[in-house]
């Protein structure tokens, strides 16, 4: 339906993909504009369509989708990417977030959770799990241990150093608190919590932007002079 949120689904398992597509289409205001089962198909389909959001499984028969995410987020940063995940793969999700993904979905998430996540990400927020939050904190602490020169300019959110507030949000998330609980604890709005999380993701992705640009050119998603 026109006016609906156009969703692109990249998932290799036939059954899961179909289930996912069906469930998404069943949700009011959502429609799946394209779906693919392999990386090659996905790249091809992405050239044809202009989705509002991408749902991407990472492990595909012909390769890892991280490259695609990197290329996509470099060429179309306004279109968010959500990783489709099962469980126990926070490392992979984190890799995808570094590449530019804004969050993740669980394959068995109930429809409500799924639509919540998509709405969240479109509203400029980002879902987060305790495991991912812990990874981010650990990573941040490692970077803090080797600080940049004080004179290093902070560019368009490209500064990899997190603010105290962002770090607070991460700490809450790492303890399993929901956005609501975090918002209450920090006395900020729920939306702000999501925005902070999104910003953390962006900062993470920025650090690998140069690499992403290179990847984009490799995949043909960007011309060399772009």
């Amino acid at each position, binding site marked *: 339906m026109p006016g609906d949120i156009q969703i692109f689904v990249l998932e290799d398992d036939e059954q899961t993909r179909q289930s996912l597509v069906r*469930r998404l289409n069943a949700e009011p205001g959502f429609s799946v504009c394209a779906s693919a089962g392999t990386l090659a198909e996905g790249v091809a389909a992405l050239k044809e369509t202009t989705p509002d959001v991408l749902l991407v499984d990472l492990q595909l028969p012909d390769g890892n989708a991280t490259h695609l995410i990197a290329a996509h987020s470099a060429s179309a940063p306004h279109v968010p990417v959500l990783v489709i995940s*099962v469980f*126990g*793969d926070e490392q992979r999700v984190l890799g995808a977030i570094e590449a530019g993904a804004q969050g993740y979905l669980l394959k*068995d998430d109930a429809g409500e*959770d799924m639509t919540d996540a998509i709405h969240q990400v479109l509203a400029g927020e980002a879902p987060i799990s305790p495991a991912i939050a812990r990874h981010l904190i650990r990573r941040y602490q490692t970077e803090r241990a080797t600080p940049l020169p004080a004179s290093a300019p902070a560019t368009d959110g490209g500064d990899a150093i997190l603010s105290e507030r962002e770090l607070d949000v991460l700490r809450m998330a790492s303890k399993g608190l929901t956005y609501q609980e975090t918002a209450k604890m920090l006395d900020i709005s729920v939306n702000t919590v999501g925005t902070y999380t999104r910003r953390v993701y962006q900062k993470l992705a920025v650090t690998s932007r140069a690499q992403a640009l290179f990847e984009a050119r490799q995949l043909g998603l960007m011309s060399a002079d772009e």
Partner: protein
Amino acid sequence: MIDRAEAPTRWQMTVAWLLFALAPVVFLAMMYFLDQPYQVPDEYQVFPSAYQKSFAHEPPTAGWKPSTGVWPAGRSGDEPFTSIWYRYDLPKTEEDRAFYIVFATASLDIWHLGERLYTSGPAKRPLYEDNKPIVLSLIDPQTGDAGELAAVYVRMMREYPSTSLSWVYIAPLQLALRDSAESTIFYRTLPLVMLGIMGAFGFLVACMFLVRRDQPAHGWYALMMLLWSIHTGHELIADIPFDRYLWACVSYASLTWLVAELYFVNRFFDARAPRLERAVTLISVSVVIALVSLASLASRDVSFHDLERTMRTVTNIWFGSVALVITARYWIALRQRFDFERFSLFIASGVVLGIGVRDLGYDSFPSVGLPGNTFYLQYAVLIPLSMFGVQLIRRFARDSRMAELRSSELERLADERAAALEKTTQRLSEAERRRVLAEERARLMRDMHDGLGGQLVQALALSEQGEDPDLQRSLRGAIDDLRLIVDSLSPTEDGLGDLLASYRHRVGKLLRRTNFNVQWQFDEDAIDVPLPANANLSILRIIQEAVTNAVRHSEGDTLRVHVSRGRDHLEVAITDNGIGIPQDVSERGLNNMRVRAIEIGGALAAKSSDAGSTVRLLLPIATDDADPR
């Protein structure tokens, strides 16, 4: 006792110099009383004391007359060279006389009544021992007359013109015997004792050198002792088993004991003076070679005699200078640090120097007329010797003690290292075990994630096509359980806190749809407690089971999950405000939980009433008190 390691004060240096000068003076004064002139009156002396003279072509003194004739007839000896005879007429007396010589060098015979009484030099025959009187009967046993027989003849052998004779007495027998006994103690026994002590010191220090080769000072000291005792022995040993001339050469060469002392002193004080040492060695060896060569010439031709004596004086002065250099070294060492060791060695060096100057004057400059009848250094030797020796032994003892301390320290260090190594090994093997475990977990997780998990998700997707909510719920339950297992196995989720956070995050989402108000309370000190992975999983499963039961059966609306820490236990309490646990659930569910609790060494208690129920898990933990650190 002065034993402080610091620079000397003016007062200390004054004392040092005073003792340095006084010690030899006191010693010389003592020797003056000990070294008495012979008790035999001078009138019995047939050759002057404290005076040596070569008398190859002229009579020794006025009392001796050349005897041109060959006497006793036909007794010119068996030597194939011409002899020169001197005759000394004894006073005509009926008393028995004793003839004795304190000192004589090579190449003379003494005859009486046609019998050879004494021979020295190459033709030496052991007829006479120095200092032992030869009894001369001055009465002709046949005529009872003392007339013509009361004469002593000395035969000089031309080949050895440097012959000298001194302290020759022909005295009444009783007088001579007494004098001889006393002088034997002082002039022979005492120096021999000194020699023995020197040898003992040298031997001891040589042994120390062999034990501790890293101390060259010990080696030099032993060499010094050897050379010095040879030099001293030269004056004492009468019956040498070889050539007297060779013996003299050895004596000259052994003067290099002073060179050995220079090396010793430098090593002892860790002073580096290789150029000085080389120069002193070179000059000393040259001087000794010159002296030995001249002595060799003089022994064959009397015209070299004076040259030899001059060279001997030069040699003595040279070695005196070396002694001066050594003394300067002691003085420098004392200036650097004033301690008992340096102080005593400086004074000892002063004794050697002072007595050495006296002996030089006595030996080389007889015209000065220094009192005394012998060299004094052989007596004085005991003072520096004992001081060197004592200091060396002190050092050796100190070094040994230090070495012992060091070795015990090393042992302690080695023990420490061994213990540390043991710990490291343990830690490494522990780390290796953990690494293997982590790898295994990762593999298991991959399998579950990619295989079982994917299939379950797939099955869930399939089931959603039909309308079987029970199947869907069952599959979701399976996925949840699998997720719990994977979480607990995940190598990156290492604490109960991490697992609880993940559980809270995931279950929270589900519970929000059930209108249950869940209060989570994880106390910081509780979730930090390190527990084995299986304990973590069991705790989670118990919580999961209790939460599920509460949600399904309690009919309440508030659920509280509290993880806290007691002094020696971990407590997990799940409380609801419902109607209590139904009987059938408590049978089945609680039993499961109990078994899990027991498996991890804990205990489970359930309390149920119509105002709600509580499931409480108590798990003992290692307390800080139990830890020895």
